[in-house]
């Protein structure tokens, strides 16, 4: 099938990385804690890739990505707990379902708000994020097991290396194929000049919605994998700060670069979690003091993203 044939180099590299990681995991070269961080990094990469499609490629600034991540996480947590799923194979349809749920919510919310631009879209997505947060905080009023502001406990641990790896590779290929097709071209046109895009015959409303829905789907899958990795969820995991996490990754990785996003996710998670291991708790509080400074410096130094090419004038 052409789908795989065109990506064989990528597949070989991925499989090699998988074998190395698997060996590390199997022979306990790295501690279970670090193993978990590795899986987490892959999940973050998958989710950030979604935001990169929305923002990096299509130019739709979203400050609510964590909300879709959260919707996926809570959906998966609820389903796996209620259906008492504990195997990888029955978990896969749940993952897909969670992606579809987040995508559907993204689609419905996207119809009205994607008409907005730049900072107004930012505030609208931020508002949606807050709404989801309010909902999660009160979720125990709808279903006791969702836990509300106490958090969701006792989620089966299912997420493993094979699962996250398989999904990431699958998603990278799909995303790459989309980006290098007419749809990706339209997204980039919209980012450059929406008015010109409609004038050459691109249905911009549909295309923006498509990018947004797809990005939210990835967030949903990422959230589901996350829920069944840590077995505990709390509404505060899905607030504005988490949205900013994803945003920083997309910016560092260079807007509109798939591999950049993957590298940036790994570096970012490694950086944050690495600091947690290296630094004492008191100094650790400094993280969120230093990160904004770096972010501001980055914006002033290179307003188009770190790994993006310098714009030729």
């Amino acid at each position, binding site marked *: 099938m052409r789908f795989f044939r065109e990506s064989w180099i990528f597949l070989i590299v991925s499989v090699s990385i998988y074998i190395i990681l698997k060996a590390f995991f199997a022979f306990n070269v790295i501690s279970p804690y670090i193993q978990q961080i590795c899986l987490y990094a892959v999940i973050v990469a998958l989710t950030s890739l979604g935001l990169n499609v929305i923002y990096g490629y299509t130019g739709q*600034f979203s*400050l609510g990505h964590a909300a879709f991540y959260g919707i996926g996480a809570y959906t998966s947590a609820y389903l796996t707990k209620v259906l008492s799923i504990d195997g990888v194979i029955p978990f896969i349809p749940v993952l897909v379902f969670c992606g579809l749920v987040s995508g559907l919510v993204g689609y419905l919310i996207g119809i*009205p*708000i994607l*008409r*907005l631009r*730049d*900072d*107004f879209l*930012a*505030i*609208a997505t*931020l*508002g*949606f994020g*807050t*709404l989801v947060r*309010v*909902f999660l*905080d*009160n979720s125990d009023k709808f279903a006791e097991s969702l836990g509300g502001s106490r958090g969701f406990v006792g989620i089966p641990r299912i997420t493993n290396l094979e699962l996250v790896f398989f999904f990431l590779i699958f998603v990278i290929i799909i995303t790459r194929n989309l980006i290098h097709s007419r749809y990706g071209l339209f997204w980039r046109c919209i980012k450059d000049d929406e*008015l010109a895009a409609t004038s050459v015959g691109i249905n911009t409303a549909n295309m923006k919605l498509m990018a947004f829905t797809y990005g939210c789907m990835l967030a949903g899958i990422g959230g589901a994998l996350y829920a069944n990795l840590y077995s505990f969820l709390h509404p505060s995991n899905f607030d504005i*700060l988490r949205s*900013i996490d994803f*945003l920083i990754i997309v*910016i560092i990785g260079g807007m509109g670069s798939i591999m950049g996003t993957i590298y940036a996710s790994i570096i970012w998670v490694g950086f944050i979690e690495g600091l947690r291991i290296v630094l004492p708790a*008191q100094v650790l*509080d*400094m993280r*969120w*003091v230093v*990160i*904004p*400074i770096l*972010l*501001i410096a980055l*914006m*002033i130094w290179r*307003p*188009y993203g770190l790994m993006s090419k310098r714009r030729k004038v």
Partner: protein
Amino acid sequence: MDILGYVLQQGINGLQLGAVYALIALGYTMVYGVLRLINFAHGDIFMLGAFVAYFLIAKFGIPIYLVFIITMLACAIAGYLIEKIAYKPLRDAPKISLLITAVGVSLFLEYFLSLNAIFTPNYIAFPRPFDVKGYDLAVFTITNVQVLIFIITFISLFLLYLLIYRTNYGRAMRAVSHDKETAALMGIGIDGIISFTFIVGASLAGVGGILYSIAYPQINVFMGIMPGIKSFIAAVLGGIGIIHGAVIGGLIIGICEVFVSAFLSSTFRDGVIFIILFGVLLFKPSGIFGKRIEKV
């Protein structure tokens, strides 16, 4: 209890909250006017005002009118520095870069001040400079705190009105927010006016911070986030860039919030505010007082 009295009572409480939102919203709307930027750090200036006032009252026992003056000054300096350090270098950068920078400034202020060596992330009790007294006006009661808030807000608005509509600086601000290039051709120093706008907006947020803390005497480094966002929504509701729009928007948001808490549940109040936001953005994006602007 008599329903009408209860509704009126909640209305007064809503106005109290709304007055504070109005003070913050003015800063958003003025900065948006001159820079087309949602200054995410503005809510944190409000928080800073509360903390400066806390130190002045709790540690130094300074009289209340001096507290207002010093706090406004401190917030003005903070606003000025934020603009000069973080926003000015990005004057020609893409809009979103500026927005991300604003988010960065906001996070920095919150987490820097939450360090244990500075303010700590915990809630601190705010020492009220006077005891709360209620005056029974037959149908409802009004407290001296509310009276103070109404008076201070009214004076601030009046002074701001004079500044904007009766002085050279105010005229220049309006000119800059309408058309920077032509304003420059009139000999108006654009950078100076932008700094001035930040200074005025930050001072008002500082006043808002003190009043809010007197009314709800618990302060915390993250206290600026939600009032900040809600005040921005107030500014959008009234029509961003429009001074009286921010005031009316602030009052409406304040009343809505209090009514939702009183008649529904306090956990839903944030949700309702955002539903208002969606409503405005979808049906009248230019706000109550805004004019319709066409694309192209």
